[in-house]
């Protein structure tokens, strides 16, 4: 891991990319590390591609703006297009393998390009709503950016109020996260 890990996460509005970034940032902060998370935001309240920029470091973090991400994750086909410019020769680029017609948009010179069957797994084994949890698990699995228990604690903090009402959701989210981690650890992808 470089001293500062820079991540760009993108997806359709409602897919929960901001939640992933917030949870990762929260978890890193709870670990006593430095974290800086900033959502992109435009004049539209809804619709469009939602992008989250996240940096985690042991030292003070510089500008919230950076040119290339160490990890770039795209949760939708439009997000692949939107985030490809943030991928450079050192980038791990993660995307959902169920997307069609994105081959031309995938970054050519990224260090590692990793398709993950997150949507398929979410649909078959859990619920499409936990797609972002599977993806977050895959991210953690592929990068080791934060320990699993910190991620769990941050999810609890973020969604605890929902879990109070529907305790089965807690289990669903945690299992999706763990399953995602397996996918992240087990997928090598294309190494350039």
């Amino acid at each position, binding site marked *: 891991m470089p001293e500062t890990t820079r991540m760009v996460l993108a997806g359709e509005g409602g897919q929960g990319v901001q939640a992933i970034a*917030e949870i990762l*940032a*929260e978890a890193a*902060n709870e670990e006593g590390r*430095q*974290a*800086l*998370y*900033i*959502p*992109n*935001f*435009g*004049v539209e309240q809804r619709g469009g591609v939602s992008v989250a920029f996240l940096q985690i470091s042991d030292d*003070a*973090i*510089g*500008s*919230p*703006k*950076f*040119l290339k991400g160490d990890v770039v994750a795209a949760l939708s086909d439009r997000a692949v297009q939107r985030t490809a410019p943030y991928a450079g020769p050192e980038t791990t680029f993660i995307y959902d393998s169920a997307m069609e017609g994105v081959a031309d948009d995938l970054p050519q010179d990224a260090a590692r390009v990793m398709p993950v069957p997150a949507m398929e797994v979410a649909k078959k084994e859990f619920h499409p709503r936990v797609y972002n949890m599977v993806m977050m698990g895959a991210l953690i699995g592929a990068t080791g950016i934060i320990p699993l228990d910190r991620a769990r604690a941050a999810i609890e903090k973020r969604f605890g109020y929902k879990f109070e009402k529907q305790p089965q959701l807690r289990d669903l989210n945690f299992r999706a996260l763990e399953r995602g981690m397996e996918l992240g650890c087990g997928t090598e992808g294309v190494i350039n």
Partner: protein
Amino acid sequence: MSEELVIEEKRVFMTGNEVVAWAALAAGADIMYGYPITPQNEIMHYWSRLAPRYGKDFLQTEDELSAGFATAGGVMAGRKAFTATAGSGSVLMQEPLAMAEMMRLPTVTVVQQRGGPSTATVIYSQQEVTLTTMGGNGEGMRVVYSTAGHQDLYDYTIKAFNLAWKYRFPTFVLGDGYQAKMREPLTIYDPEKRGITLLEPDPYVGREGEPGRDRPPAQYRNTYNLEEELYEKLMSDIRDFEKISTEIAEYESMHTEEAELVIVAHGIVFRAVREAVGNLREQGLRVGGFRPVTLRPLPAPQIRDLVDGLKKILVVESAYGQIARLLKEAAYGAACEIHTLFKPGVGIAAGEIEDRVKEILK
């Protein structure tokens, strides 16, 4: 019944707008007047949730003119009042703030810069420097702190209230959309527990007693009949401002001694500069960094020293020369080369600064 406000010293992780609301509480602010404009909205959101718990008030006005003038009314009544705005809201706010300058009112205004001119973007820029430092039909008798992140937002918002009430010049905390919306850790604290005495506000009007019988009436105006009358009033304010300038001007510098080139930037852009200076020095380049923290008044003697002893400076900003103009004025006559990296309305990454420095030093 309202609760007593207790701020335990602790590390927190929140957005910049939330930081401002907490800092205003910590500074003992009594009332906020505001009008929605992105990216400052959450200052109002957090304040309007927190304020009633601690017996404090919020008023959403019909526009920014009203928010600014109501803030003027609030401080004249002897309450720590503040407002927050951005972009075209800042433009409207110049009218009340010009009055605050003229009447020496301790208003505190938080500006979260967005893209300009006009509606532009709701995201980020450093394009409200000229407006915040010199806006209005006057001489810029205002104090402006440019923050570079959440700890700054907390520290300088508290400082802004104290400074405003001590010297009675309108005071600004100049942030931006990145700082408004990003989350990062900071330490919040009770300023009094850190030995910072919070000044008690002193009313302009509405003191005890009947005017004309127990005391003279307190009468404030911003209109003058004679040129000479205005001149005297202005020169008195200008002298006051100049007197406090060296005392209140703040800056940050890194490796400026024996540097071949110093990168000058303010606000959040200086974070990219810190990073760039570190990387460039690792590569053996003699590069330093200088950041004016107060944009008004500028740390003019330090800028003077800097340019007198240097061959090259590089000014970097997310605007097309707004801070550069202020710097050039302070550096007037120096032989130092002034290079620029201007990116109006967009963020600047360390890598871009490093490339520009290498190009200059090639």
